[in-house]
């Protein structure tokens, strides 16, 4: 476990220097005008950043309203019979519902749960596993599709949410076994 952690830690430290060495180094080896080409590629950065603004604002607005309205409490109450079936603590429901919507929101819920129940309690353990194992699907949807101007996302949202649900339920079950 410790060696595994050490390997992974080093891998994440070395990743960026290695990529830069390989990519720029190979460019130099192939006699590419590296500086000029880099600048040409980097030019698009601004365009992409500006292009995603409307998509991100639309998505964040809906999520902010959802969070402020107290909908989360109602959904928690509605979903509790289902979660009781798999033995999930009702305190974890806001975490599960918030995770696909907002990165900072779910970070807050996770910290709150760990402060209340302790990071090594089953609830704290499950909440942090939930946070570590899934992504903020709505943010990814808005930013990724927004950057290329795709407005009709077809089945992307339901498929992404289904994957989230699978990950969250697995987190609950695996943490119960682990504990």
């Amino acid at each position, binding site marked *: 476990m410790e060696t595994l*952690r050490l390997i*992974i830690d080093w*891998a994440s430290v070395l*990743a960026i220097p290695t*990529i830069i060495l390989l*990519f*720029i180094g*190979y*460019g130099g080896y192939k006699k*590419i005008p590296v500086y000029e*080409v880099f600048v040409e*590629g*980097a*030019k*698009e950065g*601004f365009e*992409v*950043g*500006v292009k995603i*603004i409307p998509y991100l*604002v639309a998505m*964040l607005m*809906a*999520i*902010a*309203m959802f*969070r*402020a*309205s107290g*909908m989360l409490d109602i959904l928690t109450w509605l979903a509790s019979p289902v979660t009781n079936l798999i033995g999930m603590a009702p305190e974890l429901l806001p975490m599960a519902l918030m995770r*696909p919507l907002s990165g900072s929101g779910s970070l807050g819920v*996770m910290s709150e749960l*760990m402060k209340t129940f302790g990071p090594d309690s089953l609830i704290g353990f499950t909440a*942090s*596993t939930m946070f*570590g*194992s*899934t992504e903020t699907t709505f943010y*990814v949807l808005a*930013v*990724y*599709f927004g*950057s*290329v*101007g*795709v*407005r*009709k*996302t077809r*089945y*992307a949202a339901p*498929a*992404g949410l*289904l*994957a*989230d*649900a*699978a*990950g969250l339920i*697995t987190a609950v079950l695996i943490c119960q076994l682990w504990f």
Partner: protein
Amino acid sequence: MLNHIWFWMIMLSLFVAAGTDIYNEITAPPPMETAGEELSLNKRTKLGQLSDAALESAQTGVNISLGLIGIMALWLGIMKVAEEAGFIKILARMVAPITRRLFPEIPEDHPSIGAMLMNIAANMLGLSNAATPLGLKAMEELQKLNPDKETASNSMITFLVINTSAITLIPASAIAIRASLGSVNPQQIIVPSIIAATMATIVGLTTVKLIQKFEKRKKRTEGEA
């Protein structure tokens, strides 16, 4: 689909906030004169909080986007060098056996494959700063292959599902918060996280592939009719 989700999120939020406010005003109207400072109506009511949150979110959206520009430029520059030198093609060829199955529409050494690979690798290492620019680069390349520029292609959705259920070897922020709150073993979540994320990826990919198969069959029978 996103249209419906968006619409109902907003409508339900408004109804719930309004309902809560009406209920609170009827059951427990606030005293006219309170000892301390009285909360303004805007701060006290759900509808007021909701308006504040909505307006604030617009600013957050701009801040996130502008914050991406620098790191975006850096990675797009590096990727451009790698692309011109032919390095991305080499990467793409290395994973061709997998990508052929997952993305049948994409030519084998297309630059999108190199970018997707880099994005997934960055996610695995927990380099979220690098992952987003690389992912957006991949989307740009996928858009070049997309016949209908306003509609998501099958490859885009497959990539997105892999991305949202991204397997992270080190969930760094969760571990950091656990450590700061005095956990005895903060990295204990690594293995359960990987298992849960793998499950999410499997379910996501299966869903996407089933839908794609179903749509293909539907299109074929429609063609025959």
